[in-house]
């Protein structure tokens, strides 16, 4: 219930800000977004009012955030040292974080994934991999 209300307030606030933004648009372009934002705000009010009994979830709080941050770090690493080296760093790190301690499997999986992506994306589909800053 509280969670729903937080979302409702979030959407109302963000909606209001975006609505204000539409004043910089030319009128014809602003109509549709405004309709949508008004709709979202109205529904948010309903959401706020609607009293629902919610079970609290037993999901851990930090793991998803940390996983997300590690993934963001991965993306930055790709930008810096190009895709394949970055992946070689990232995969073991995340597997370790998620609980694996079996270095053989970690190594095998990493190599396997690199080969798979190379074969599929580079050779078959001829995707130009991101060039890193350093190499």
């Amino acid at each position: 219930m509280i969670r729903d209300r937080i979302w409702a307030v979030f959407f109302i606030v963000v909606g209001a800000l975006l609505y204000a933004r539409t004043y910089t648009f030319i009128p014809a372009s602003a109509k549709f977004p405004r309709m949508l934002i008004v709709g979202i705000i109205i529904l948010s009010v309903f959401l706020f009012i609607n009293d629902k009994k919610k079970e609290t979830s037993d999901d851990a709080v930090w793991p998803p955030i940390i996983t997300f941050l590690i993934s963001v770090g991965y993306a930055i690493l790709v930008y810096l040292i190009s895709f394949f080296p970055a992946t070689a760093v990232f995969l073991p790190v995340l597997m370790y974080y998620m609980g694996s301690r079996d270095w053989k499997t970690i190594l095998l999986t990493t190599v396997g994934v690199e080969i798979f992506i190379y074969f599929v994306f580079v050779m078959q589909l001829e995707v130009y991999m991101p060039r890193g800053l350093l190499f």
Partner: protein
Amino acid sequence: MFDFTDVFLELIGLQTILALFGGVVGGIIIGALPGLSATMGVALLIPLTFTMKPAPALIMLAGIYAGAVYGGSISAILIHTPGTPASAATAIDGYQMTKKGLGAKALGISTVSSGIGGLISGLALLLIAPPLSRISLMFGPAEYFLLAVFGLTIIGSLVGDSIIKGLMSGLIGLLIGAVGVDVMTGYPRFTFGLIPLESGINLIPALIGLFSMSQVLTLSAQKKAQQVEVGSLGNVRVTPSLEDMKRLWVTILRSSGIGVFVGMLPGAGGDIASWVGYNEARRFSKNPRKFGTGAPEGVAASEAANNAVTGGALIPLLTLGIPGSSTTAVLLGGIMIQGLIPGRELFTKHADVTYTLMIGFLFANIIMMVVGLAAARYLVMVTKVPSKYLAPVIVSLCVIGSYAINLSLFDVGVMLVFGLFGYYMLKSGFHPAPVVLGIILGPMAEKGLRTALQLSQGAPIAYFLSKPISVVLIILIALSLLSPILMNKLKKSQDIPDTASDLDS
């Protein structure tokens, strides 16, 4: 109209065959893996289809869909954990059979039933879709706008916690779709000065983020490392005998019919079909008591129905662009990224692609059956992969997939942000499917509305009510807003358990 030889040549082309096999096998594995769903698999593999020709691309995606729906039965039967929600009914009798040492037989029955169900739905697709597509010729801007609204309301009303949240998700999706240069005036909206945003938020990275990356985050949050005890296959043959088939064929046929019908209804997916199939089989059975103790009919009914949904759901998708479920919503993205638009055009201008797809779909189901029967014992190993290895691999695929579309790291960022957003949304009862649908349909909806308003010259209500299809759509929209109530009644009458329906197939 079009050349059958073209279709034939396309079908035996190398890329198509690879796509067929790769899609079906990949789909089966994805469906069998606990923690992955059909929707997520399709989302993740869409970037691969980007550089393929349209026909192989669509065949691969359809193959993944069919394979994954079947694959879910593998873990349902062996570990009592449905790999996808559509296999929940299969888990009941399937697992009982495993406990009796008949696991292999259950797998065999599931495979054959899924294949037949899929084949029948493929035939239905081939027969119904082309004539049905003519309806889209009668669609003008007003109808397209209402169609978009209908698609959003029906999916919004059936997913997630409540219709309010579903509709909100849809509106959010529409708003995200509005980011970028306004097609009709050229004015940039919500770009905040960022140049990459001027072409809007790219659909595929958002989709991958919402469905795949968010699932990774969900996996990371699960506290208990789910160590699963996989049931043994027993000493039985996998392939069902003629004896078995004679007893089951009526069940399979009936369930397939149910599945096709349910699949055609927008908003109703594999899970509903499998329960209805299961219950109807029980009703018609001579000894209903054995259901729940390991009756092969239970497995057959549930699996035939849920695979029959796949072809059925493709009918409204291809003819009108209305997705019947999350997975088909993602498929819609995959279709549009090839530059194809659902509707009559698919059956006239692009008939070669569409017919190749429909016939390829039939082959996909056959391949699925063959692979399932041959490889059942090996597929079991798939169900044991722990998420600590799976999750990082998926992240890698998410990253490279999002990058590959436009060779843009910005898109990777989009994917990650949507992943985080999607995770918290899911936790709070908002479902990502309406968001994706909103992004896809946003431009079409807005264009339809603005053109219709122009054409109506100041009298919009009269305009919308003056056209018969418009009126029908308006009534459908009103009905779909009521559908949660109807669905609840249906579920209660069928004793379907009230898990927040994932519409994942």
